[in-house]
């Protein structure tokens, strides 16, 4: 019997900064081992050699912002056995989803002198809004260890071990001093999914939510506390409206902080 061929890995890019796919190349100690275990069949940022699909595992970076990309992601899905999205752009639309709450025509005119040449959709949307997704890896950017865990889990045909608890849990485990309690620093740790290593509190900074909302976050309880710590409503709204602005719980939290007109 012939040996089973290695699984085929593909890496795809949509609207993004390239940072999440770079995370794979940043696995300096593991990259060659990964390359021994899988066939890197389509990864344009790293290779000229492209093997035609189908692919066993597709890692998808970036959000959907053009009609062309909305068509392309369906092609990617069709030739992928397992599709995993990597990073905040692919899982919630990314920072570019701020256009979803604004007039994209006006955006076009601000950035481009000849706006008619720029083809873009009015919204930046997550991959799962277009095709079924098998697993979503959070983060802006994703965490290297979590990426390796997802690849390893796929190779072993098991579910990835990626916790969905809050940053607070990881922060306590790491032994950080709580920046809210000790310094009165506003922090999104109580409502943000873990995975980063609780690095912001470790550097005496409040969490800014780059891994997006945890499962069932209690943002309604957090918002008054943020006010008590000195944030005005505009600041609260901006805090929830960054790299996961379009993730529904963060979007709702920003909206509940009111509009400029309704400020006290």
């Amino acid at each position, binding site marked *: 019997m012939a040996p089973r061929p290695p699984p085929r890995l593909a890496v795809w890019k949509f609207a993004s900064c*390239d*940072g999440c796919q770079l995370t794979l190349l940043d696995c300096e*100690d593991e990259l060659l081992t990964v390359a021994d275990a899988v066939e890197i069949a389509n990864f344009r940022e790293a290779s000229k050699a492209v093997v035609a699909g189908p692919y066993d595992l597709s890692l998808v970076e970036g959000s959907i912002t053009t009609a062309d990309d909305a068509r392309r992601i369906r092609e990617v899905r069709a030739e992928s056995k397992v599709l995993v999205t990597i990073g905040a752009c692919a899982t919630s639309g990314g920072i570019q989803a701020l256009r979803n709450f604004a007039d994209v025509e006006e955006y076009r005119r601000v950035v481009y*002198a000849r706006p008619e040449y720029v083809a873009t959709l009015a919204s930046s949307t997550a991959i799962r809004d277009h095709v079924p997704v098998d697993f979503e890896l959070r983060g802006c950017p994703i965490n290297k260890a979590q990426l390796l865990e997802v690849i390893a889990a796929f190779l072993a045909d098991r579910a990835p071990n990626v916790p969905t608890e809050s940053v607070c849990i990881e922060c306590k485990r790491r032994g950080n001093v709580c920046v809210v309690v000790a310094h009165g620093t506003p922090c999104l740790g109580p409502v943000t999914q873990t995975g980063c290593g609780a690095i912001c509190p470790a*550097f005496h900074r409040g969490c800014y939510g780059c891994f997006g909302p945890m499962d069932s976050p209690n943002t309604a309880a957090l918002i008054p506390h943020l006010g008590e710590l000195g944030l005005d409503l505009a600041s609260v709204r*901006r805090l929830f409206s960054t790299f996961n602005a379009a993730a529904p719980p963060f979007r709702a939290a920003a909206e509940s902080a009111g509009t400029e007109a309704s400020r006290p």
Partner: protein
Amino acid sequence: MTERTIAVDYLARVEGEGALRVRIHDRSVEEVELKIFEPPRFFEAFLRGRGYAEAPDITARICGICPVAYQMSACHAMERALGVRVDGPLRDLRRLLYCGEWIESHTLHLYLLHAPDFLGYPDAIAMAKDHRGLVEQGLRLKRTGNALMSLLGGREIHPINVRVGGFYRCPTRRELEEFRPELVEALDRAEATVRFAAALPFPAVEEDYEFVALRHPSEYPMNEGAVVSSRGLHLDPDAFEDEFREEQVPHSNALHSVRRDGGSYLVGPLARFALNRDRLPPRAARLAREAGLGPEVRNPFQSIVVRAIEIVIACEEAIAIIDRYRPPAAPSVDLPRPTEGAVGRAITEAPRGMLYHRYRLGAEGTIAEARIVAPTSQNQRRIEDDLRHLVERSLDLETPALTDACERAIRNHDPCISCATHFLHLDLERS
């Protein structure tokens, strides 16, 4: 009458989504297009209304390869708008963080994206099958750059410790001293990298570049300096927009940053090296001589050697900064209340070249206007010039070989299309 088209629909081993099209009619090059189909993300638009302190973290997301460059240009520009200056150990720590990014970004390009062109492989993974030691050396050196960024910034991509006015937390002396041996080893690997790169075969090409880079009174430039060019330009970064402008080109609907007279120019390692040859630290200076580099390098293929020299510079600089480091009294300077209407501009040297930020502040410390000019939008016109010259002298090559040569000519300049897109007109019709 013969018509020939060289087309690459999706450039590989560059950061971002780009394509190439060259149209040749008889023996004349009619059209050269470095096409960008990376979708726009509208950073300058949604920065309006954000708090001034948010600019470093938000603009970092323009590029996952050089987030520190965006954080640095944003911080310096905002500090100009606020009228504060960050000096002493805080300034040193910023330079140290930048050293980490230069090491990481240059090593990524040199070993994983550029070297396979010279050794004839589609990628570094295939190259590792025959040259495992070489690729491992590159990955090990790259790890040092990333480790330095994580030590200072919390993580290597989109570091979390940078703020307008300084940092959230400064490292202790001991934390930096413990990292020193790693850099000493990295310096040896960087030296081996120079020797490897210098021994590669280079096509005999000389381009007549106008080099543009920062120049500082005593340092190899990273965070500050005057804007100088190889044709005699010397100006304050505040005057950047007087001498450089964006121009629309009919063949690609793309805005290129060009000189005032419309000419192309080159930023990045070749430019920095040519304009700061007398600012190299000792080991880098010796290695540049041993590698046979003259006062300037005008062969774009040799940019791989100059990038290696800049890795040496970054390692030497990082060690020197660690050796003189005394933690500052506070991790950041006090910032005054922002003034509505204040404008701040700054240029720093991203791994790929000068990165310009300008902000005008609105009410209550918000951003009223933002303008960002990335290195690749400045180099795009010049890359097209390189391509035109390459095709003109290589018309006898068969199309596949010529296409391959064109891709290499683009990769020489390490373009970052993710960065450039926010300033370029896009033609999304893929032919």
